[in-house]
């Protein structure tokens, strides 16, 4: 066991990068402001890296997301393992060609001659009044893209272990971080530990209803489970951790056990990750569920600026709790 004192997600990710770079000289880091001269990224996730590993391996870049991802792809074709940062998830929109037409497909299109073992770290999350262009959740796009893996940790220990695994993975991984929970402390990871990609975790055990969530929504789901526990509802919370490929085995087992499923994410509900999981579960568990599978996500709208609207946008513990109660009545 690990009894180090709690750390934040920022610290966990920073440690993962330090440890990975120390272990393997092929690991590179690039992105806007990632160097120490620029303070190691706008929140310090890459702090200390360029000082320790040099500015050839840790490169701050111009504001050129296509060039960032392109450079990472090219280096990875030569056996490097670049960790590229796209500062905020909305800015992947200028680099989708590099990510989707190239990083995701080169292995297939080359008939397996080349591959792209890179990680794209990016960040998003409502709550800071950043408005419509800084808080989108675009994981569905990537999950719909063959060749990519998509990971989204909910706590520091998973952040560390998943990032280490993502870096070692031989395929391109989209690694989604959540800004508002960057500073939420959690148990420290065991140095050198790994969390395997594609494996969910049971964040809370329960028997009446299964919540499937990822990233920040896991924390909100746990809050909701706490709330409804007082009403005698026992909720199991499955933390997907990897969104693509998602852990069907664990999710199906939990859904089979409870017979009720609520999918929760911050992305807009329509065509969100929940749609695929619900559609799949409905096929597998047809006739075996106690109630329809429900999905909770953001409304079909851009992220609003005004605080009360922003607060009402993504599912939070209270709204999840309401959905649980209503689903128990279904």
């Amino acid at each position, binding site marked *: 066991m690990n009894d180090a004192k709690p750390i934040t997600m920022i610290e966990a990710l920073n440690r993962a990068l330090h440890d990975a770079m120390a272990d393997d000289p092929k690991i590179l880091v690039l992105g*806007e402001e990632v160097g120490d*001269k620029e303070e190691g990224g706008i929140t310090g996730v890459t702090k200390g890296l360029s000082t320790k590993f040099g500015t050839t391996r840790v490169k701050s870049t*111009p504001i*050129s997301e296509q060039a960032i991802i392109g450079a990472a792809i090219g280096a990875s074709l030569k056996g490097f393992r670049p960790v590229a940062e796209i500062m905020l998830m909305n800015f992947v929109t200028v680099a989708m060609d590099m990510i989707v037409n190239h990083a995701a497909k080169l292995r297939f299109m080359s008939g397996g001659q080349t591959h792209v073992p890179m990680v794209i770290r990016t960040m998003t999350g409502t709550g800071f*009044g*950043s408005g*419509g262009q800084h808080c989108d959740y675009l994981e569905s796009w990537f999950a719909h893209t063959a060749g990519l893996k998509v990971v989204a940790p909910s706590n520091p220990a998973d952040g560390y272990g998943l990032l280490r695994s993502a870096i070692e993975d031989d395929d391109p991984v989209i690694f989604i971080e959540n800004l508002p929970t960057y500073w939420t402390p959690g148990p420290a990871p065991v140095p050198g530990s790994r969390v395997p990609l594609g494996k969910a975790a049971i964040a809370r055990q329960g028997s009446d209803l299964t919540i499937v969530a990822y990233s920040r929504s896991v924390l909100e789901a746990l809050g909701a489970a706490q709330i409804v526990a007082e009403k005698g509802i026992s909720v199991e919370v499955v933390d997907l951790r990897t969104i693509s490929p998602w852990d069907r085995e664990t999710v199906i087992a939990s859904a089979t056990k409870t017979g009720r499923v609520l999918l929760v994410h911050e992305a807009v509900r329509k065509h969100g990750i929940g749609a695929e999981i619900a559609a799949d579960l409905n096929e597998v568990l047809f006739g075996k569920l106690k109630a329809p599978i429900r999905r909770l996500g953001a409304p*079909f709208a851009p992220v609003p600026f005004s605080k009360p*609207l922003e607060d*009402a946008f993504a599912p939070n513990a209270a709204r999840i709790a309401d959905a649980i109660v209503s689903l128990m009545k279904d």
Partner: protein
Amino acid sequence: MTNFPKPDAATLMEIYRRAVLIKLNDERVIKEMMAGKLVTPYYSPRGQEIIPSALSVSLRDEDTICTIYRGTHDMLAKGFPLDLLWAELAGRATGSCKGKGGTMHLTHPESGCMVTTGVVGSSMPIANGLAWAAQIEGNGNIAIANFGDGAANIGAFHESLNMAGVWKLPVIFICQNNRYAEHTTLADSTAVERLSTRAAGYGMAGITVNGNDPDEMYGAALIAIERARAGEGPTLIEAMTYRFNGHLMGDAGGYMDKAEKAEAVANDPVPALRARLIAEGITSDTELTALESDIGLQISAAVEAAYAAPYPDLAELTRDVYATAA
């Protein structure tokens, strides 16, 4: 730049009025934020006031601008109403965007403030479209795209300038080179010394001017504006300036060169223009003090009105997504 058109006394006064409005407004935003009364990501334009002021005095109301998150200076200079601005910053229903856009998406078509973007580079492609509309209508109006030095390295810059060049669009690209892109210096983001060099690659006029000098900025802007109105094509103006504050409120700018910053602040262009107006006998300290206190009152009124206004109704969450609700 010796044969640049020069602003006359009245124009200089008007440039100052706009610049000091921007400066006082910025100081008030920061004060409100420090007091915890206003909570928003805020990108201060302090130090860059002269650029839009010396530009906008030659613009028509019908001319349009696209600007960026660091854009209150561009918008106030263009005539964005203070009350709508403050209510929007405060996320109120009475804001220009009903509180739904916020600091990074301030919009006010009546004053020509068509788009504020939070994405680096994205003001430029849209400004081309505004210019294209003017070109089709043949009304002699023009469009302005504001952006930073860092934005000059993103793909949208290139595509926009090239298209404007080949279509001879009535658009002006104002690169406000404040020496930093977030924490990154210009030298770390490009090997070229003057970004205006790039204009030649698009068969377009390009110039680097001291954006903090009202004469230079006014002259360069006027030439570009007349060129655009005459259908003679776009211009890239690199306006050299300096970002007095960190990238956004809360960023102390520890990475900024201390001496360089001290020098820039010592050469604060707004008080410099004030002193010049008095020195040249264009106006007096008394008159300017009255102007400034009048502006201060207008700002206060806008601030108070904003705070007194209601937040938007929760139903607004799904309104304005489409023309008609789903």
